[in-house]
């Protein structure tokens, strides 16, 4: 249902305010989804994942704040959730529900986080490539670089984690589910 499919006249390339509204929403939604997942892990009494996802969420929060600060003096258009021109169904920096599972490991979580940062980077890069409005082009380039930065830092965490696994086997190679479902109602 997203309007992003039709690229030719994407308002993202033409209207700075529209572009910024998307940027704010992108960061905010990323943070909200990450908090939601972190909470879910808390509810499921998985403190490790809760902690990891919360820390990622905290980063997203600060990105969102930065973005809002940047737009402090702008009047941005208000979009309904479905009026954004995302390239896909959801904003690019969001964990898709089907990438989440209660058995997911820290590695899975970081891997997904890396992918969504990369997809955010692609999103901005694409705008930077296509926008004719120089102001948009410049901002998109800047944001793409920032996303690249986020991605790099997550990639670092991920390889540290992986390295850690090799050293102290802190990653569980054995994904067996020992926790059978039961029936609350």
């Amino acid at each position: 249902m997203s309007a992003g499919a039709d690229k030719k006249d994407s308002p993202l390339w033409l209207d700075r305010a529209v572009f910024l509204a998307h940027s704010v929403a992108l960061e905010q939604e990323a943070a909200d989804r990450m908090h939601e997942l972190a909470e879910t892990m808390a509810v499921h009494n998985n403190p490790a994942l809760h902690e990891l996802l919360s820390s990622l969420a905290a980063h997203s929060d600060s990105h969102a704040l930065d973005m809002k600060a940047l737009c402090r003096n702008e009047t941005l258009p208000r979009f309904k959730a479905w009026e954004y021109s995302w390239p896909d169904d959801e904003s690019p920096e969001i964990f898709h529900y089907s990438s989440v599972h209660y058995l997911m490991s820290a590695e899975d979580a970081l891997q997904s986080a890396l992918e969504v940062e990369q997809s955010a980077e692609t999103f901005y890069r694409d705008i930077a490539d296509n926008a004719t409005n120089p102001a948009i082009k410049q901002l998109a380039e800047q944001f793409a670089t920032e996303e690249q930065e986020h991605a790099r830092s997550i990639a670092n965490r991920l390889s540290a984690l992986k390295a850690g696994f090799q050293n102290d086997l802190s990653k569980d190679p054995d994904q067996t589910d020992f926790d059978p479902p039961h029936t609350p109602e």
Partner: protein
Amino acid sequence: MNNLTIAMVGSGGTGVVTAGEMLLRAAAKLGLYGVLRKTFGPQIRGGESAAIVRLGSEIVTNLSGSVDLLLVLDWSNFQRFADEIPVTESTILIEDKAAGKYPANLPQPQQTLTLDFLGLAKTLGSGHSNLALLGYVTGWLGCTAEITELAIRHRLQKHPQETIELAITVALGGTQLQLEQPIPLKPVLPLPTHASGVNNEQNLWVANGNQLTGLGALEAGIRFVAAYPITPASDVLEWIAGEIESVGGHLVQAEDELAAVNMAIGAGFGGVPAMTATSGPGMALMSEAMGLAVASETPLVVVDVMRGGPSTGIPTKNEQSDFNLAVYGLHGDAPHVVLSSLSISDCHFTAGWAAEIASERQSLVIVLSDQFLGQSSQIMPPTASTGFSANTEQAILAQGEAGEPAPYFRYLDTDSGISPLALPGQPDGMFTADGLEHNAAAIPSPKAADHQQQLAKRLRKLDSLVESPHWAEVHGQGSLLLICWGSLYQVSLEAQTQLRAKGIDISVMGIRLLSPLPLEKIKQAMGQARQTLVIEQNQQGQFAHYLGSFDSQGLGPDQLSFHQYCRPGPALFSPVEIVAQVEKLIDTGMSSC
């Protein structure tokens, strides 16, 4: 100490329930008896959970109400289980290093040991501290590596080979740890004489009451089951689903309970012994159709695995609060049979009996089981064949004049109250079964005489049931008679033992036939005791009210005089709780409820 309660508590995904299942099986292989109770948080899966395993050298049928050994992999959300895992000063606690903070409001246990199960697992290439813990406990219990291994293999049989091997490695690592850092308590559990460990395993079963209800039903000849899932009855149905085809029957998953019960009635009308299983909300929906079974005299077994009520209530916990619905919940005067299963293994017997009664008396039989009986696993000797058989006796149709078939009276008023039943396919037995009042010839009739005849017949046909030797289990002799039903029976027997140790002898009666109530037998037993205490797990004392309702209203000499103690779930009754009530009654002459 010849029995021992071990509770394992863990967080999302740690798998303590699986460890509990393995522990129970290892204990069985060791020749021990035991019971496993699982308990969970509100999440579907991946939430905190606990396994309570009680082991003994003699048969163990219920929980003790206290915990000897508490094994904690995760303290967060421990309070969810506080009702069920009472930590006392005498509890010995083993906690994982990674378990988090000891809860503030918990009493300090006798001894605490903090061990690094997670670290151990990780060292061995796994994240499963539950397995390290398992091996730690089985080692302490005296299981050989082989037994622990067999228990793991059994539970994980559908998993890949590497998973199984890794699991065994971790568990045996735990066993090793136990040698270095033993539990400050000796598992003085002498092996039962009949068993000597792993070689004798074939002699014992591990089963829960829901499965045994299924077994009892199928062995007695139930060949049609209609199912609508509901906690905690679903696994009766799921067990049957896996087996019924192999004996030539069918299970249908229905669209709702209304369909389920009516499907079972249809099959029963066809002469195929039929049942359905449900819990309170589902049985409430079945009420109208159960009345149809009564009026049309169609055999039907309905199993109600009770949970906490009213309404959706507390679906995963035990309560005995569907008694009223089972006994009184039909419209009109609708006599039917209500049984209660008296233990996990008795689920087998009672289901078989129910099937037999339903067919033999062309009647509705409700079986009250409960969440504890249904969902707790027990190590037990194989249950004996019940010998029950649900064979609907087909009418022998008389010949009339000149070889013509004589008129057939489906609802003939007989001495026994049981009328001759023709089954579809039987020539010359054609009739239309009816929930409308009818005469003996099955023709609708609103006449007073027909109504009274049919009502009386339907009541009378159940009368002789009270003569059945199966009406109750009665145990011991004492000046106090403790009356109970359902899962409280086994708890009461343990209370009886504890009281005997204190020099108090009581007799315990677990009533299996709740309706029609074998009143004379109960009165006789009450007559032999000085006092009677009726206990049950519901708020309003439903059974006690029922029993009291048979008092001949203070008019005759045979009044029913008894005390009662009742309280709702979700917490299970413990032997100690019953002991306290008995002592209180003896001391003060007063009961609490």
